[in-house]
């Protein structure tokens, strides 16, 4: 042992103590993903072993010295059918299994709490509905499904949390989403996995999964004062959206109360369901989809609102379920101290009167 150089020795020790084959399983889907992964490892091993066994045994048995003259064989339909059908069957099983998992990871449950993520060169900006902002970090509670709504403000990025086995591309100009439910409190890697230019490898951070209690504490400790929806409300007023979108019968734009989740008929005759992505489009490219019965007069807000601002507007519109809110905004640009409207999750507590800062 003494002959091994200390560097090498240290190295080996380090390796043996830290050796892992897969990252921690810290989310609900992680064990499911790993089950499929190990199933595939297993069939791969079987397939590979068969190949290797065949090669090795034939190499020994039919070595030229042992078997100087080859016996010519055409082929064998039966054998060939065997090794067509068995791999095909196994591949199809992985396909179905994989597809189930894929749909699971990319179909958020209805009760998921929503967190917004903006990727930019080279950082992740996270917006909680409660108004907490984070950079290159994401705090989430355990035991609760969390949906991420992701967008990039410049190039492709990709939001990856290996310990949760989830990953989703951040695409410029479009929302994507992914969800997970953390199970183990802890700190995990957050990577940008899509090559995005110079500091791609610096676009990393950490995901902190906390028990619901800790999470609540954290939310309170890191509040910025007003919720995302309130930010949105303020934007709604300052961009004078309410000039057109108000409950008065003479308003030029449709009333936006309850618009989220509703079915709109467009001038083209198409019907669509209003979701986050539609709201974003309606603000940035209003003329692309004109609601039936309205003139295409809404101006574009491209270049005037940041992606975070749009998130705020979207969050506001999502929770806009009574005319009262609009009335309020209409009447005064000073925010009402105690607003009605369903408060955004996690945002209720910090909103004491007078706390609103501009």
């Amino acid at each position: 042992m003494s002959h091994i150089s200390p560097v090498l020795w240290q190295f080996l020790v380090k390796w043996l103590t830290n050796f892992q084959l897969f990252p921690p399983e810290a989310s609900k889907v992680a064990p499911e993903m790993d089950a499929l992964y190990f199933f595939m490892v297993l069939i791969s091993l079987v397939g590979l072993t068969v190949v290797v066994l065949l090669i090795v045994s034939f190499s020994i048995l039919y070595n030229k010295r042992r078997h100087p003259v080859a016996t010519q064989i055409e082929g064998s339909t039966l054998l060939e059918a065997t090794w067509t059908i068995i791999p095909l069957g196994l591949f199809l099983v992985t396909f179905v299994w994989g597809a189930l998992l894929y749909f699971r990871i990319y179909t958020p449950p209805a009760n998921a709490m929503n967190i917004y993520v903006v990727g930019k060169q080279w950082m992740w900006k996270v917006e909680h509905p409660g108004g907490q902002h984070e950079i290159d970090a994401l705090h989430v509670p355990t035991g609760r499904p969390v949906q991420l709504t992701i967008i990039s403000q410049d190039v492709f990025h990709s939001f990856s949390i290996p310990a949760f086995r989830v990953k989703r591309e951040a695409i410029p100009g479009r929302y994507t989403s992914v969800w997970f439910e953390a199970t183990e409190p802890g700190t995990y890697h957050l990577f940008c996995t899509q090559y995005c230019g110079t500091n791609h490898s610096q676009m990393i951070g950490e995901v902190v999964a906390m028990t619901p209690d800790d999470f609540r504490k954290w939310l309170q400790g890191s509040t910025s004062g007003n919720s995302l929806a309130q930010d949105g409300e303020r934007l709604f007023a300052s961009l004078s959206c309410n000039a057109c979108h108000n409950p008065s019968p003479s308003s030029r734009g449709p009333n936006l109360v309850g618009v989220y989740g509703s079915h709109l008929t467009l001038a083209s005759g198409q019907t669509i369901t209003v979701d986050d992505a539609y709201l974003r489009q309606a603000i940035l490219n209003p003329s692309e989809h004109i609601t039936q019965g309205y003139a295409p007069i809404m101006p574009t807000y491209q270049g005037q609102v940041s992606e975070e601002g749009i998130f705020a507007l979207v969050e506001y519109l999502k929770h806009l379920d009574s005319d009262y809110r609009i009335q309020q905004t209409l009447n005064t640009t000073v925010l009402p101290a105690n607003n009605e409207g369903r408060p955004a999750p996690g945002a209720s507590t910090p909103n004491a009167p007078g706390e609103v800062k501009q």
Partner: protein
Amino acid sequence: MSEQNQQHAGHEDEHHIVSPLVYLTILLCLLAFTGLTVLASYKDLGEWHITGSLTLFWNPVVALAIACTKMTLVVLFFMHVKYSPKLTKLTVISGFFIFLGLISMTLADYMSRAWGRW
């Protein structure tokens, strides 16, 4: 094997020299179709609501159908594919097959997105 034979069979009948009369007929057809497609474009041919969000407009459909017909005429007669060996026919068909694969599978992705654009 079959192709080997056909390749040679090809030589014998392949150099079918198309008569100028055929060319002239095709030319007239093509010009007529050009006229037709322009005329058709000046008329609103309406639309067909398949389901709520799927609507088919007849104008583009007609225009593209005429274009396809014209293409077929050019390919078959001016380019002699009608008189060409099977191999040439197969080549043409496979080209369009892959082309349609590109277009249709790309468009299918766009159309089946939950909500992005489209």
